[in-house]
């Protein structure tokens, strides 16, 4: 190999070492270890319990990984930057939870499903609605009742919606009342809404 190739390879690895060190520093500064003290303690205890053979294997693994990082440092650095930008990964997100239109603050009063059903009859002179509780929405009502378990409580609710036009210089539509106001019934289990049925909206 000629001198130039050695020189450029040296530069490549030196730059890699420098960037890996910068990366370590960035991780120390921005990536907070969110594990609890209990978990940290348990991990330390597991580490202490390792046999000398396991420790040797871990050491060689670290050396092999480190060497690989120095060889392909641009990839490692890109992954690191991406991780730091994306924030700590979490296996649990709120998106896993079902979303409801109603919130606990919207609940009005506890209702008896049987009484609700009796009061939910809809009449139309043109017979363009089924003769069932909540008319065209009956399927939703049936679904809600089906989800009810012993101990659950059914509440009526009304969302507060929002009133457009409160901001200065607003030129949009002049609705007279708040928009997106939704009425319905919700099933509350252990102080949480677990199901809902919308009966009126705008």
């Amino acid at each position: 190999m000629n001198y130039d190739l050695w020189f450029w390879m040296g530069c490549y690895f030196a730059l890699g070492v420098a960037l890996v060190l910068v990366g370590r520093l960035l991780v120390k500064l921005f990536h907070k270890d969110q594990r609890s003290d209990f978990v940290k303690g348990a991990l330390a205890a597991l580490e202490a319990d390792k046999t000398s053979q396991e420790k040797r294997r871990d050491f060689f693994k670290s050396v092999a990984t480190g060497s690989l990082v120095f060889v392909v440092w641009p990839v490692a650095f890109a992954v690191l930057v991406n991780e730091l930008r994306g924030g700590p990964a979490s296996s649990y997100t709120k998106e896993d939870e079902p979303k409801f239109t109603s919130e606990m603050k919207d609940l009005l009063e506890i209702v008896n499903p049987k009484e609700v059903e009796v009061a939910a009859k809809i009449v139309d002179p043109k017979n363009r609605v089924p003769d069932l509780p909540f008319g065209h929405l009956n399927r939703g009502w049936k679904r809600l009742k089906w989800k009810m378990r012993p101990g659950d409580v059914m509440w009526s609710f009304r969302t507060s919606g929002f009133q457009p036009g409160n901001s200065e210089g607003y030129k949009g539509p002049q609705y007279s009342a708040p928009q997106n106001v939704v009425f319905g019934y919700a099933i509350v289990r252990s102080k949480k809404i677990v199901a809902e049925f919308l009966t009126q909206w705008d």
Partner: protein
Amino acid sequence: MTAQIPEKMIYKGEELSLCDEPLHYYMQTVAKDLKLEAPSSALWRGYVGTWTIEDGRLYLVKLKGYKSSDSGALEIELGEVFPDYPDGVFAHWFTGELRCPMGGLLEYVHGGYASRYEMDLFLKLEKGVLVSERIVNNGHAEPNAPQGYRINAMTTFGRR
């Protein structure tokens, strides 16, 4: 967001644009299994409904929608959403105000139903029954201003 194609409202024999979506939550809840598909960026909800006020009541009398299926996008009509009522349904679930813009264009806004027109007709309904109506005057348009609701641009999505 692109300006959205409005619903249609037939009121006192006049066909107006309806810049509200009385069917929104029905499609999101009771009919959510239909899996509607947007044919363009101007129709994210995937359907256009035709509404009418007859004898002081709000009825949905026509619907043209698009749903996704294994064999591609399919056009659907009212009977698909309300199988026993293909000719019209009483919209007893709607309580609130419906806005129908009228007259010349004052200001075009390329998003939602935000464009402004000379007048807004507001129909107030209670459980699908018309309670009152009012007209809000928003100003005077230029003599050569476009009349009626319009959308300046949209992206049409390819069908499989």
